């Protein structure tokens, strides 16, 4: 019986229980225990479908454990544990509860075997995670959170529409591999794409991750997008178009990241770029490629966590993550610096670090299937990753121009979490066999060949040489405090202006939500409330005479319609 307790239930029960414990180390310890119990349960559950029941006449499976969901479920639990250790010092009940519920929703989503429960958890991740952004408690974070919430919930609504259509066409809501051939699957694909931050749908990511709290971003970075990767891998493996979407995803964020000043935003762009690799893997769809996607997601969660942790620690100590304000921090925070460099080396896929053993699976899979152009694009992207995550992040924070900031090393719990995560990155890089053992398909792959190690080192080190060269020549772009435009300009700037131009009543709800300028908001709310508010045509008390007049009108209409029938 114990074997079929779904791991998400542990989080669901753990969250309210945590609130009963006095706020302090005891509560933090209890919260860290939750994912541990989750992992133990997960290891105990046999592969197969469990907890199958029926809702709205459809079979619903709450716990489907197989080789694919196991990998993601395991890493989600591990990531939750590390994030909770990192956030040990946080005493904000709102963040604590939302971290647990958010992680629990993500874990729940990975294990559901049908689209209805997937939708439930899908929306749950959206709603629970937004509090990590709001927890910053600034005006900007409130608006960012609202935008984030609308897009995430919107993704859920699109998913539901797709599921409904799919259900009415096929009569089944099972969550298995689908063909991208109709409106239903198209909408489902779009919903996954929004969460996965496909190009042009990606801005919520760069918008929200820099807005969350120092600890919240670590949590955010682990789940939402990887859940989308899992969903794509489950639902659309081998879908050709994903290869090209993924290829674009790996390339375009590189340029944005290179000129972005806010280092957490740089990491958000870099996250985008890494997701591209996974999406390409799903698109290729061979066992090797899917293994690569799963492995890369696993490693990626860890090294991206350690990078966000190091930036979180810096933010915690200095109050900023802007490259223009930082520099020379290696003196104050040497341990954080080492962890950050390990994360940077992992994401850049240096041999002996985790990125190397996972990314090469995808790279090889594209070459094997003859996608040479895509192969070249991924190689291009690898150099780009080195630029913004491998060099820019550690260099501008810990070296570079000395900002003069002298602070303490990160708190012990942050250091512990970073060291643990960094150790996992190195461990997987040095000894990948255990990771390969749990991948969805049997692995017959050797990452450490002479050719592979040499070529990788050649590429990375010569790129590093280029960096040094450009730096010495003064050609490397300096960091400025600036806002850089991206596609979100469309809905943050252009759309409100257009809406103002149209001046439509109902659209003002939208413009209010996306937080356009205040004057415009109040003007447009006035317009809608004139019509719908307590004084408006629809919202006010209607005099009885007018009510009766409506009756007469409607009678006339009905009579005429009936009359016209014969």
């Amino acid at each position, binding site marked *: 019986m114990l074997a079929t307790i779904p791991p998400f239930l542990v989080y669901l029960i753990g969250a309210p229980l945590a609130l009963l414990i006095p706020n302090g180390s005891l509560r933090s310890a209890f919260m860290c225990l939750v994912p541990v119990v989750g992992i133990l349960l997960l290891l105990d559950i046999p592969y197969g479908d469990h907890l199958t029941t029926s809702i709205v006449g459809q079979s619903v499976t709450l716990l489907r454990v197989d080789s694919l969901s196991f990998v993601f479920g395991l890493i989600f639990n591990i990531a939750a544990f590390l994030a909770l250790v990192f956030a040990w010092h946080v005493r904000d009940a709102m963040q604590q509860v939302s971290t647990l519920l958010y992680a629990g929703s993500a874990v729940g989503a990975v294990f559901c075997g049908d689209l209805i429960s997937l939708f439930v958890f899908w929306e749950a991740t959206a709603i629970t995670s937004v509090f990590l952004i709001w927890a910053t408690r600034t005006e900007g974070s409130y608006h960012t959170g609202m935008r984030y919430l609308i897009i995430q919930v919107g993704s859920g609504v699109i998913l539901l529409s797709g599921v409904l259509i799919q259900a009415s066409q096929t009569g089944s809501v099972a969550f298995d591999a689908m063909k991208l051939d109709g409106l239903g699957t198209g909408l489902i694909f779009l919903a996954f794409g929004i969460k996965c931050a496909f190009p042009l749908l990606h801005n919520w990511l760069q918008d929200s991750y820099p807005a969350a709290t120092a600890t919240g971003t670590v949590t955010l970075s682990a789940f939402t997008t990887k859940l989308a990767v899992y969903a794509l891998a489950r639902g659309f493996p081998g879908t050709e178009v994903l290869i090209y979407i993924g290829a674009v995803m790996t390339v375009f964020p590189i340029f944005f990241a290179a000129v972005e000043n806010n280092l957490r935003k740089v990491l958000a762009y870099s996250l985008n770029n890494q997701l591209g690799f996974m999406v390409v893997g799903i698109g290729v769809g061979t066992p090797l490629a899917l293994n690569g996607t799963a492995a890369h997601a696993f490693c990626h969660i860890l090294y991206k966590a350690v990078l966000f942790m190091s930036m979180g620690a810096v933010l915690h100590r200095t109050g900023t993550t802007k490259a223009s304000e930082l520099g020379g921090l290696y003196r104050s925070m040497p341990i954080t610096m080492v962890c950050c460099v390990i994360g940077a080396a992992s994401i850049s896929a240096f041999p002996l670090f985790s990125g190397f053993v996972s990314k090469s699976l995808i790279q090889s899979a594209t070459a094997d299937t003859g996608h040479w152009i895509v192969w070249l694009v991924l190689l291009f992207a690898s150099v780009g990753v080195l630029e913004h995550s491998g060099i820019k992040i550690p260099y501008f924070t810990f070296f570079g121009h000395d900002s003069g900031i002298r602070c303490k090393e990160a708190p012990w719990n942050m250091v512990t979490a970073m060291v643990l995560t960094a150790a996992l990155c190195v461990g997987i890089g040095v000894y990948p066999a255990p990771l390969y053992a749990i991948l969805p398909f049997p692995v017959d792959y050797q990452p450490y060949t002479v050719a592979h190690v040499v070529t990788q080192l*050649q590429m990375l080190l010569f790129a590093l040489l*280029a960096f040094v060269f450009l730096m010495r020549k003064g050609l490397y772009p300096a960091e400025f405090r600036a*806002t850089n*435009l991206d596609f979100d300009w469309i809905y943050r700037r252009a759309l409100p202006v257009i809406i103002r131009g149209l001046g439509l009543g109902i659209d003002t709800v939208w413009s209010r939500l996306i937080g356009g300028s205040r004057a415009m908001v109040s003007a447009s709310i006035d317009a809608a409330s004139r019509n719908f508010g307590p004084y408006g045509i629809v919202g006010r008390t209607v005099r009885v005479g007018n009510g009766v007049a409506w009756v007469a009108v409607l009678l006339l209409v009905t009579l005429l319609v009936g009359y016209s029938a014969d």
Partner: protein
Amino acid sequence: MSDHPASPITPDRATGRFVRMLDWLVANPMRVIAGLAIVCGLLAVVDLLYEKHPSVPVEALPFFYPVFGFVIYALVIFGAKTLRLIIRRREDYYAPYSIDAETPNSHMTGEQR
């Protein structure tokens, strides 16, 4: 949020030595660069020594990876610099209260610097 154990800044000997080592490296950047150049030179030589099994035709070209790494890196930088000309705006471009424009301290979780 101030009741958690503050991390001690006791002068840790191991850390101290590590930081001093880094200080020396930062003070002598040419040595670092020279080291990097030597490693790169060695790698370039290695390129001629081992037997290649190209999975993609271009891999067979001599010095493909070193040249690719160097050139693409430079391309990325120049591409980004061009992009910046187009997309750069003031920090409070979207709103006076957007995340980018907020004061540095707003994210601090109650800890002194």
